[in-house]
């Protein structure tokens, strides 16, 4: 049978089916009499069924046409069967394409999955009733259960269902034996795909979308909103492709030695060697970091900040330079942005008193305009009130302090101290032995608690000393 149809599969049809446009084009090609899959007539329990193909032939044709290897062709073939474009003749419930001599046929387009009308329950009930009529007891257990359920739920329409079933049964009887067998096979295959037996995976399963994006009528406010957005989008500053794409390529080049998929990680990738030393030596609370980790700190300020060990090192450097207030301010502002809503007011007051008020103990040096904006904003404290000041401080640290840090003795010292773990070279037997002794690792809650106590202790130590309380003790006269 040759089918030369190819309809448009825009979003108008059922959701998630746009991919089937390509699939159907492929299926049409497969059925071409000259260049398609070779088909022949096969005898199956007394009747001769035309246009039957073997699994092997289908796979070979797909592999040849799409220039794939056997595994991929197998995967694609299985999808064709799972979606109902090809159906198996022998083991009709197993929707997989086997690379052997088992027989398959193409499904008629009437039964293809992307029809405008979904397979309704009523149609299924009619089909089951028809099968039941033909030979009592030909329904499988799960089909019988469903049939009984339909009888309960679709009771008002039952007369209609029985009527339709009888009509179809009668019409079928008038067909030729060969046609009848073929049609029965096709219909059975269709329903296996649309209403799979229990515990079978169905390829058609999906979450339906709530809104059909093509259905809605657009009102004027939708266009107004689009116009507002577009005007703002046009006024945005853009960057030349060479610059931005060049930056992407540069990023990849910088990090390629640190990517475990591209370069081996020292001492070994825990997933490959079953040895989690790699994670143990890279814990956030470790004393001496690895060389790779220290190298990553030099890539950008954000890489340094994201690593708690790196932050500790940076703070050490700042302490030596007596310029720790920028970092402390940045951290306090981050806490505010990501903090809970209830603590906003308190946090903003503390930050103001500690960093921004004239004569504050850890006064940060930012330009007048930013300071003015920030102080004014603190009248109505909200989580982004420190955004301008935070950005300014961050850029200061990034453009100046960071480079001095990288040249400083603190960093150079750390580079010397950093360990280079020896590569594990486990052979297969050792890997298996490791697999039996996998360590459970520390619970992240414990690590977090440890870091939290450390942070609180550091905060307390960093707090400016309250002179007045000490003065009271000294001044006793």
């Amino acid at each position: 049978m040759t089918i030369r149809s190819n309809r448009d599969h825009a979003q108008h049809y059922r959701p998630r089916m746009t991919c089937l446009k390509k699939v159907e084009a492929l299926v049409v090609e497969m059925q071409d009499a000259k260049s398609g899959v070779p088909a022949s007539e096969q005898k199956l329990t007394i009747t001769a069924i035309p246009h039957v193909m073997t699994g092997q032939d289908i796979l070979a044709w797909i592999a040849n046409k799409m220039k794939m290897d056997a595994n991929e062709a197998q995967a694609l073939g299985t999808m064709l069967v799972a979606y109902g474009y090809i159906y198996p003749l022998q083991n009709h419930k197993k929707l997989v394409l086997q690379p052997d001599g088992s027989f398959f046929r193409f499904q008629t387009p009437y039964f293809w999955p992307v029809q405008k009308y979904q397979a309704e329950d009523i149609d299924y009930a009619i089909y089951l009733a028809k099968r039941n009529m033909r030979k009592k007891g030909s329904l499988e257990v799960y089909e019988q259960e469903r049939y009984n359920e339909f009888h309960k739920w679709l009771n008002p329409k039952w007369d209609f269902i029985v009527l339709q079933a009888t009509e179809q049964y009668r019409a079928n009887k008038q067909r030729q034996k060969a046609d009848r067998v073929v049609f029965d096979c096709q219909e059975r295959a269709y329903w296996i795909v649309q209403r799979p037996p229990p515990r079978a995976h169905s390829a058609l399963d999906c979450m339906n979308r709530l809104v059909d994006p093509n259905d809605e009528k657009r009102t004027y406010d939708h266009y107004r909103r689009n116009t507002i957005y577009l005007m703002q989008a046009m006024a945005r500053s853009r960057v030349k492709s060479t610059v931005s794409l060049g930056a992407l390529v540069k990023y990849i080049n910088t990090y390629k030695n640190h990517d475990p998929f591209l370069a081996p990680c020292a001492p070994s990738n825990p997933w490959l060697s079953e040895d989690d030393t790699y994670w143990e030596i890279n814990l956030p609370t470790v004393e001496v970091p690895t060389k790779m980790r220290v190298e990553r700190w030099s890539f950008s300020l954000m890489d340094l900040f994201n690593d708690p060990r790196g932050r500790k090192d940076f703070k050490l450097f700042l302490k030596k330079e007596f310029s720790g207030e920028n970092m402390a301010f940045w951290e306090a502002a981050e806490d505010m942005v990501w903090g809970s809503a209830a603590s906003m007011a308190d946090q903003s007051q503390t930050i103001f008193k500690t960093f921004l008020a004239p004569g504050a103990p850890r006064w940060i040096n930012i330009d007048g305009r930013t300071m003015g904006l920030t102080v004014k904003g603190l009248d109505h404290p909200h989580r982004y009130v420190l955004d301008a000041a935070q950005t300014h401080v961050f850029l200061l640290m990034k453009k100046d302090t960071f480079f001095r840090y990288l040249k400083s003795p603190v960093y150079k010292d750390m580079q010397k101290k950093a360990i280079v773990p020896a590569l594990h070279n486990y052979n297969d037997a050792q890997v298996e032995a490791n697999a039996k002794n996998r360590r459970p690792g520390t619970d992240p809650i414990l690590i977090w608690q440890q870091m939290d106590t450390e942070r609180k202790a550091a905060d307390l130590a960093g707090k400016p000393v309250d002179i007045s309380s000490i003065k009271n003790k000294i001044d006793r006269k």
Partner: protein
Amino acid sequence: MCDQTFVAITFGPCDNCTKTKPLMNIYLNNEAINYCSLCVELMACQGLEKGETVAKLKKETEALKVKLEVERAKLHDTELHKLAEKVEAVGQLNIKARRVLKGHANKVLCMDWCTDKRRLVSSSQDGKLIVWDAFTTNKEHAVSMPSTWVMACAYSPSGCAVAAGGLDNKCSVYPLSLDKNENLAAKRKPVAMHTNYVSHCTFTNSDLQVLTSSGDGTCALWDVESAQLLMSFHSHTADVLSLDMGPSETSNTFVSGGCDKKAKLWDMRSGQNVQSFETHESDINCVKFYPNGDAFATASDDASCRFYDLRADREVAVFTKDSVMFGASSVDFSMSGRLLFAGYNDYTVNIWDVLKAERVSILFGHENRVSRVRVSPDGSAFCSASWDNTLRVWA
């Protein structure tokens, strides 16, 4: 906080109603002004004036769209694969499934890694949330959710809590405990409340805020302690299926993708939709930022994954192949950003070379569609969750 930041006035007196609120910067008659979101909405919804018709407004919008494309094309002077010609090709990857995590009774819909690089949380259609130590394949916690189809789950940055949501229209946070036998379902804290299913949720940089996207077309930022809505993001015209927060330097922004085929970049401070990309031909199932925050990738039902550059404001690569015919459900980048792992509805995972837009490898093993692919925080492995009730960790 990339080099392109400018001090935008994100909070202050609105130019129209003079109340102090979060501000969006928009352009009226080519003049930059700052309006609060309420004033912007009022402006959009005011009735049609004399001589204005819906058709005229539509024409105006279409004309602006064309102008925007022209503007974007002006700075387009090279293609990614041209720049990548000098870069050497990715060698042979020897990736195999190292762990198969079995335990769910139904389709696994979502998973997320913990920051300790070995634990992960997964949610499934049977209503269960399981926290695994993927390295030892032990199940550490199992929580029963009140509804089935738990489509979104996330691990908090501290590792002390997980969030999950789905068809119950809510996203709830469950604090984890060291005691394995404790009933975590009792400590459930409902945080987000949408008017339709929650498709994706994630914690922001701390445990105290959750960002969710929903089938009702909006994204929202919630405060965990008080379960209060902090900011909502409206612009999508259909279900929003996925979102991703920008990595640290740009963490005031996030990108979302939806059934209206658009991927949008949002400013979290003002709730404004800053950039929008509409080049896909079908629903966008997943969006993910590039590790440096200046680009992102999307996976869609039209069987392609696309790569967009935020600074150049355009699509720069399309990952597609004739033999890849089925929709992509999820994408993630490797640590350096060179490899893109994409899970598809034809039960496979394809690995693409981002620079050359070529497929490097294809992985088989799952017996049903792959619903989510996530690379571990240190990039040493990636996990794929599938509708065949299992999760596989590949390295």
